[in-house]
């Protein structure tokens, strides 16, 4: 991930007429800027598994995780439970926290008071490659 912003693309013209587009140059689109709102707090990871396929996160997708966000109900989060990473949907009621999978084969995880649980970050995008 780049912490600096991209430079405008300015072709060097050696001779002949100046490009009529020169005065209208804009920054090229940067995926970094579009997908990463807070670079120092953003991390990437590969998702491996099937528990979230019904919400559209598939095996091998890249998830972009922003650690600066506080999770709200319904957010997809990267959680740490008993020392291991998980990707699940976050759900919090007055009494307890639940981690919801999106695949009927997987059970809902209820976080007990004495569980070693931590929200590692909030998933803001997932990226899938088709070829």
């Amino acid at each position, binding site marked *: *991930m780049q912490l600096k912003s991209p430079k405008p693309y300015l072709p060097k013209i050696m001779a002949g007429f100046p490009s009529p587009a020169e005065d209208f140059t804009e920054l090229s689109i940067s995926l970094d800027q579009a997908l990463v709102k807070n670079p*120092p707090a953003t*991390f990437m*990871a590969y998702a491996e598994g099937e528990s979230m396929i019904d919400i559209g996160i598939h095996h091998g997708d890249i998830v972009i995780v922003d*650690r600066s966000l506080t999770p709200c109900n319904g957010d997809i989060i990267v959680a740490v439970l008993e020392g*291991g*990473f998980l990707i699940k949907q976050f759900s919090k009621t007055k009494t307890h926290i639940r981690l919801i999978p999106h695949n009927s084969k997987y059970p809902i995880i209820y976080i007990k008071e004495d569980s070693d649980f931590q929200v590692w970050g909030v998933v803001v995008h997932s990226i899938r490659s088709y070829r």
Partner: protein
Amino acid sequence: MIALADCNNFYASCERVFRPNLNDKPVVVLSNNDGCVIARSNEAKVLGIKMGEPAFKSRDIFDRNGIHVFSTNFALYGDFSNRVMSILSDSVPSIEIYSIDEAFMNFRGIPNQEEFAIELRKKILQWTGIPISIGIAPSKTLSKVANSIAKKKRKNGVCILMDKHETLEYLKLFPVSNLWGVGRKFSKMLEKNGIHNAYELTQKSDNWLQKYMSIVGLKMVKELRGESCFDMVNGWSRKKSIMTSRTFGHEIDNFKGLAQALSTYASMCAAKLRKEKSCAKSIHIMIFTNPFKQNYRMNYKASKTIILDTPTNDGLEIVSRCIDALRSIYRPDCIYKRAGVIVSDIVPQSQVQLTFFHQHADIEKRHHLMAAVDKLNDGFGRMKVRFAINGFEKKWHLRQEKLSPCYTTRMSDLLRIKY
């Protein structure tokens, strides 16, 4: 007021961000070549693991106590350092990056400084996973003292030294050997003179201090008394010298191999100079055989210093001067274990004066060439574009048996979450 932010057990903390199962477990990080311990988590400190302990001697202790051992992963630590520094510099008027894990911050004009520091610390921990401590005081030297108190005695990781009397009480408990800039030599001299803690040092006369500790020592003590003498430098403190030195993974017994290693270190020094927009006037090379091996044909170490007419950061020039120097000190009857390059007498690139004989056009061309090399290497990985003399053999490369993935700088090394 000046604040010092210092990351707690920085390398060990970086290793833990992607290995949360290691929180509360002892972690150590080994130096280049897995030589000795250079970072310890608090749990490893409690087990009595010392800084600088040779790894081969400690294998048993590591195993018996279930200590998790890592080779240094500077790609990872460098990335985390950039993240922490970028958050700090967005949060305060100005910062001076002092090392990979420390920065001075200008706190002038910030109200409720203690509260502010506690929030800043929380932010860094949440955003990056790295715990830091913050010491706030009227001078840089005192901010170092405050930081050390924050680390050891404050649950919230923040200590502010405002009150003069309170500060003096703390200085009474602070050993002189732990003070900023007091090395082993000075602390021995001070102990001999009956000065054990920082408070006793502040009671010495200015004349005495200047006589025995030079003007810098006097300034340091003035800072302890609450008077700010060392100014903040914006951005990076410009280094006085840059060293790249390594112990080889395998020993080298021929000129070609040694020249490859040395030229690689020389190119790395040159690249660091260019990154800082600096030039160096002196180059110093060193080669060593292994002093611990008895059956060696020859125990030999040698070094040579080259003074340039004009300071430079041109990799081609620095490499070729190093190889010339190596020819003059190389002995074919030795087996080499370590080599290094130091560039010093560093001046800003903008202040370099060219000599009468320089071909300006050539310099311009070289400048563009080096800029292109840097750009390619930034994009494709370190030393991807190199001088032919750097070679491709990896014999002398580092031994890094316990290297963690470069989670944040290589796509192939991204964290894999099995969910």
